[in-house]
């Protein structure tokens, strides 16, 4: 619950000084290519390239990076299992119909489909994690403003951004205090303590938010947070790297479009 936010890592990563648009282009482009891909090879290639980039260029600790994949990996494996069992096909290895409306089977088509979805998830997740680890939210606010996201949304986003950290702080402190007083001894107590925790934190950060608005009003806040972000220039080397990455990935996605895991050429 109290895991470290990727935000903290993103603020100090090795690619912090690279232009935000370039990083977004690389990440979003990779997601886009993964979705367009029709075979498992493209997403797998993207995942490998991005992982190497994150570990070597952004200098993210391998344990942290691996840890981020545990959750998506578990979910992906479980859900792919469901897809493999229900999607059916012609070349059947095994099948079982517990109910008339439900038939579970293992076919070469369903394994192909399942493995493909699994790789697409891994590719997509590595692209998402790439953006999350290299681009702090504060940089994204600058991009959002430049892209003319409506002011109210941006304001609200920043307010939520701030309150997340405020709530987290209070939550951790109160939670530890409750644990020390054996507040989570039984299920009933847990519910009671957890509600007290949520209620007090909610009201606490609400008044903190009101104080913030009052303080800002006193400083001529007119419903528009000033975002001070320097735009870093697009440098040649990073630009070429991103272009090369997207180019090569597109070629891989295109060339590998008809290559299934089982029954090649079918």
């Amino acid at each position, binding site marked *: 619950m109290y*895991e470290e936010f*990727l*935000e903290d890592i993103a603020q100090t990563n090795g690619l912090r000084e690279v232009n935000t648009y370039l990083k977004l282009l690389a990440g979003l482009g990779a*997601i886009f290519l*993964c*979705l*367009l891909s029709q075979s498992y090879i493209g*997403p797998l290639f993207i995942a490998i390239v991005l992982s190497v980039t994150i570990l070597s260029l952004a200098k993210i600790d391998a344990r942290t990076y691996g840890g*981020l994949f545990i*959750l*998506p990996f*578990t*979910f*992906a494996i*479980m*859900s792919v*299992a*469901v897809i493999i069992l*229900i*999607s*059916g096909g012609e070349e059947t290895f095994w099948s079982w*119909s517990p109910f008339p*409306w*439900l038939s579970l089977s293992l076919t070469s088509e369903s394994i192909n489909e399942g493995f493909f*979805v699994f790789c697409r*998830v891994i*590719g*997509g*997740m590595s692209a*998402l994690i790439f*953006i*999350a680890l290299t*681009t702090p*939210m504060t940089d994204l606010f600058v991009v959002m403003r430049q892209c003319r996201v*409506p002011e*109210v*949304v941006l*304001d*609200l*986003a920043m*307010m*939520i951004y701030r*309150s997340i950290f405020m*709530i987290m702080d209070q939550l951790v402190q109160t939670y530890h205090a409750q644990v020390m007083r054996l507040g989570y001894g039984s299920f009933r107590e847990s*519910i009671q303590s*957890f*509600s007290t925790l*949520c*209620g*007090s934190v*909610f*009201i606490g*950060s*609400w008044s*903190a*938010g*009101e104080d*913030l*608005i009052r303080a800002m009003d006193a400083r001529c806040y007119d*419903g528009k947070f000033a975002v001070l972000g320097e735009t870093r220039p697009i440098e040649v080397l990073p630009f070429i790297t991103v272009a090369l990455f997207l180019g090569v990935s597109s070629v891989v996605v295109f060339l590998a479009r008809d290559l299934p895991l089982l029954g090649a050429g079918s």
Partner: protein
Amino acid sequence: MEGFLPWQWCVVWWIIALPCLVFGIYQLKKILETDRDALPLLGVTGGFIFILSSLKLPSVTGSCSHPTGTGLSVICFGPWITSVICAIVLLFQSFFLAHGGLSVLGANIVSMGVVGPLAGYAVYRALRNTQINMYLTVFIVCALADLFTYFTTSLELALAYPAPAEVGGVMSSFVLFMGIFAITQVPLAIVEGIVLALVFKYIVQLKPDILLRLKIFPEEKIRAARGEA
């Protein structure tokens, strides 16, 4: 989860989500013009949804089970603004915790930010002026908003990965996904309802003024709940 839905479905859910967001932004503008003090409450509600929905539990389907926490926001601000808050929260989740994803954001907004809140709001409007206990109403709204979110998620998954037509197609995989979600989600929805109802109780006791100003419940009800005659 990023990459889980085929791109056609990502596009479909985005197309459904966008008009709701636009309308939500319009309403948000109106509220902030008349009542600036609502901004901190909006922010805290968003932060709250973020924290609650970060408590992920493994579930055997493509996405995962977690409380949604949208109920409170629905009661305070209605379903459309809730969808904007949800969109922001879901975006933060993908960037802060690598939960969810950008391509599936549209689908997530539809399930967590549109259908769930709409269901909750319908119940809230139906029960608001009746004799039913205020906290019971909050409980039902929050639990239903949560359950309908998973109802929609199951539908999204089933539409993208239907079983073959001869064994029931979309319907059969929908039932399967629903069944798997239900194991974790039904107890979770009940717990979430209880927790948010208790949170609401604290708000009524400590800061009832904004509830009165936003006309969330009739004044007599809130007074009665505070023990004022």
